[in-house]
């Protein structure tokens, strides 16, 4: 292992993390809900009457964030490599896995660990571990990326 000093951004990343923590705190303290993106989206598929507006408002806020960032002069970068078919397969796995495991990086990784939930700690170790093995395997098999 060697550190990628050229791309390592400890301060902006810590700042971003604090903002995410503020959002998760506001969600539980104001709305009484866990800020888990996969559950908020998955619960709207299919939409249930009387249970869709709050989900839509939150998700629209997420999607609007880059528009606000651009208006403030901050130009986010996103380096999406990989083919369309590869992304579709990855998307299916992420959707299926987060629905089966009832959470993703925000629900288990942030909100779950913050409240010391054993279930979320197990889930986070597993998905970070399996993500690391996957990236290692892609490199070891010479599949690019």
């Amino acid at each position, binding site marked *: 292992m060697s550190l990628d000093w050229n791309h390592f951004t400890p301060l902006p990343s810590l700042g971003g*993390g604090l903002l995410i923590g503020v959002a998760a705190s506001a969600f539980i303290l104001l709305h009484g809900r866990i800020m888990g993106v996969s559950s908020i989206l998955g619960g709207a598929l299919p939409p249930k009457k009387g249970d869709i507006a*709050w989900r839509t408002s939150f998700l629209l806020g997420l999607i609007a964030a880059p528009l606000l960032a651009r208006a403030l002069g901050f130009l986010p970068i996103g380096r999406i490599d990989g083919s369309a078919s590869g992304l579709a397969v990855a998307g299916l796995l992420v959707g299926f896995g987060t*629905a089966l*495991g009832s959470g993703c990086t925000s629900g288990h990784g942030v909100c779950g660990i913050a409240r010391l939930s054993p279930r979320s700690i197990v889930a986070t170790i597993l998905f*970070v571990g399996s993500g690391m093995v*996957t990236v290692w395997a892609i*490199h070891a098999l010479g599949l690019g990326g």
Partner: protein
Amino acid sequence: MQRISEFLIGLTFGGGLLLGGMTDPAKVKAFLDIAGLWDPSLAFVMGGAVIVGFFAFRIARRQARSLLGRVIILNDTMPIDGALITGSIVFGIGWGLSGFCPGPALVSIGMGEWKAALFVVAMAAGMVLAGYLNRQPKG
């Protein structure tokens, strides 16, 4: 009023993901690449969020209702079972392949990335499929 608050919370969350660099799949993959050139930034994002959330959830645990009068739902009674373990491993594989988890993928749609939109459509299909299989009679 509630709708505006939820929108602003989503906006703040998305802003945190953007500032933290989590909407850049290559950066997320570099965090998962511990055997190669490792970028530990994502650990700082998660650490910062957990530190703030720790105090909020300690307060929330002692309340029955939220400040806006809603029942606080903490989902702490579910077991560590096969679904949690299998689901988390499958999620990690998709995360490692793409560098996208659900939140950043949605934010990337707002960046005008058609590939992120494709990812989200596939992700939604995966969620529906998991829900459908879950409703099948077992045994």
